[in-house]
């Protein structure tokens, strides 16, 4: 368990105050901004990447 904690600790050092980005009256934490960007990327990918097994699927009613 200590090894796992050590590995994760090396990847993500959380022992510091959060990073914030300010733009005028907008202030957002870097973590929240990253999550929003990932959501946008996942949304765009979901529209262009075909679902696996789509061609093999049978019995669709349209």
């Amino acid at each position, binding site marked *: *368990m200590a090894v796992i904690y050590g590995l994760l600790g090396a990847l993500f050092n959380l022992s510091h105050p959060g990073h914030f980005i300010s733009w005028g009256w907008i202030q957002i934490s870097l973590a929240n901004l990253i*999550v929003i960007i*990932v*959501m946008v990327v*996942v*949304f765009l*990918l*979901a*529209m262009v*990447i*075909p*679902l696996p097994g*789509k061609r093999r*699927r049978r*019995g*669709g*009613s*349209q």
Partner: protein
Amino acid sequence: MTTTNPEIDRQLTTRLRKRVVAWLPPDKLLPDTQPNYVSSWIYVFGVTTLVAMVIVIATGCVLAINGPQWWHLSSLGHFVNSMHLWSVEVFFFAMIVHLWGKFFMAAWRGNRALTWITGGVTFLASILTGFTGYVSQTNFDSQWIATQAKDGINSTGGGAYFNPLNTGQMLMWHIVLMPLALCVIVGFHVLLVRHRGVVPPFADSSQPTEVNA
């Protein structure tokens, strides 16, 4: 099923069953097939949200059984607590991508306005559920959030009825009222989706939508 006995046909249970089955026949509630256009990743996020919600509730039940000492001090408690948090993260993540997908698909088409509205209400209710959860963590984080939030809520005049500094009230909202409300709203949302069928993409909007039961 109509009987020859008019007394039975007038019964509350008989009339209710007829109305329910007419509104949502079993083959629409649990269909054998789906329209071809559902074979897309963008249609996956609704059910992802549902699965995440089931995990949120299941882990929440385990946390409720064992209590704060357990989730703060034991390894298994930490694990279940983390499962509860991260399934909430997945829940919101999937719900927002689902919301974007349905917004750009104009998913309120085809008499689906109530489906759209119940989805929106679910989103707002989820935020309140998440908030009451954050102030129920019983740690310094929850104290900080509660003391900050009380000023905002007091500025609306709502502090007399909804007080973030009242830990017991916040916990009850989080584990009783909001889960109950969410289950009812989400359940109705899913039934509406089955009733109207999954909204087709714009390219297929000329196709009949009721055959997708």
